């Protein structure tokens, strides 16, 4: 189901958050500024707790850059999510963005990466032990 608005914003949604079973799938639709990035982080942390999610996939393929702030925000998200029992996989880092991150010596601790959404789901499945196809279809109940 599509997420409602991010908290505290009345602007049109720049991000959609879908719940697929125990996973949250985050699609970013446009470049985000620092405030929007922080808001997304807070919202995801809140939803992970509320929905007892086991994994988060963040698709960043439409982000124009992953600079120090964006990287730090994703790292913090992954760290907090892990403390609450969820793993984070970032997918869709373009070659250009990857090169910039390497030149900036940016590391994303706590964050797993995968090429695209499909691989990201597979990765999350491995990480959380929820290899079951059903998890991706959202029909598998927890436990």
């Amino acid at each position, binding site marked *: 189901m599509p997420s409602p608005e991010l908290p505290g914003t009345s602007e049109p949604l720049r991000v959609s958050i879908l719940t697929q079973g125990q996973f949250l799938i985050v699609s970013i639709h446009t470049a985000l500024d620092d405030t929007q990035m922080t808001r997304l982080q807070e919202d995801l942390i809140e939803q992970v707790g509320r929905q007892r999610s086991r994994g988060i996939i963040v698709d960043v393929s439409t982000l124009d850059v*992953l600079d*120090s*702030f964006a990287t730090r925000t994703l*790292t913090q998200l992954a760290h907090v999510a892990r403390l609450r029992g969820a793993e984070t996989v970032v997918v869709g880092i373009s070659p*250009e963005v990857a*090169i*910039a991150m390497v030149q900036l010596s940016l590391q994303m601790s706590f964050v797993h990466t995968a090429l695209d959404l499909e691989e990201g789901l597979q990765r999350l499945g491995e990480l959380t032990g929820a290899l079951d196809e059903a998890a991706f279809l959202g029909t598998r109940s927890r436990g």
Partner: protein
Amino acid sequence: MDGARSELGPDDQVIVDLVPMVRKVVGSRIRDPHLVDDLVQETLVRVMAAHSRVEGDTMAPYAAVTARNVVASYARRNDRARARAHLLAHGDIDSSERPGDSLLRQEDRSIVAAALARLPAAERDILVAHEVNGDDTRTLAATRDTTPGAVAAQLARIRAKMRVEYLLVKENLEPPTDRCRAVLRALSAGDRRRQRELDTGAHLLECDCCALVSAGLLDRWSASSSDDEMRVPVARDADVVTARQTGRQVAARLGFSPTDSTLIATAISEIARNIVKFAERGEIVISHVSTGGSDGISIVARDVGPGIPALEQAMRDGYSTYRGLGLGLPGARRLMDEFDVVTEVGKGTTVSMTKWHSARRRPGDNEN
């Protein structure tokens, strides 16, 4: 014109051939098509009257001068040209002024009069002679014992001055510092070299008067400066995105690869964020640079703010950036080919960085 044409002798073809040129001269100054027709005819009548006194091969320039004078005298009759003196086109003095171009409100005329009164008498005279009386640069040069080129350059300077005075009168502002007028004139004239000498960007950030007036001046130049120079004011988060996206567009237009464009956009993001986080306000100027056969993009970020007290440390602490301690400066430096920071505690910081086209990298530069 039919009646007039029948009076022409065997040389009438010479006059007919002049019509398109005369129409162009008049049409470039007057919008109303009926008025254009009237003034073209008036011009041709005068040219025909002088026909016998003018050599065949000087007919065209003579007709052009006549057409300009006809337009100017029409404008004077309508008492509009004077009011428009400050708005007359800059640059190509002989072809782009438009004395009778449009109507102006009464209040504007009094502002123009007040601004004109602020010019030295000699400058006011030459401006009025050219813009209002329609004297061309050759005539003005002859009476002043100088060259048309020198007169043209002088007129351009006076116009630039006039625009500044006009805006100061209009906004009812008195420049607070000695530098203000020099800065504003350099901006008004579009004189990049002088702007660099005066560091106009830094002045605009700290001088509210000039910031306000420059908005009116820069509007005039936006069309000519947008091709190779973009300015992005930076005060809030959203401006960081605008700055880096603008940088990417300019980089792409200058032929940088998608990878290099991304590196440039990322570097801009880092330094623009510093302005939002640490300074009051600032701007990022993105432009094309070209020196000694190499070609690149220049990013200059200036701010008014506290400055960076421990610059060396800020530059060294590169690996702490993602933990939130650094300023993004070392990161930006790694992404660009040249990087320079000038900071003054309590005043502000200017970061200048350049990336060269890798294909045309300057000899001796090392990529790292």
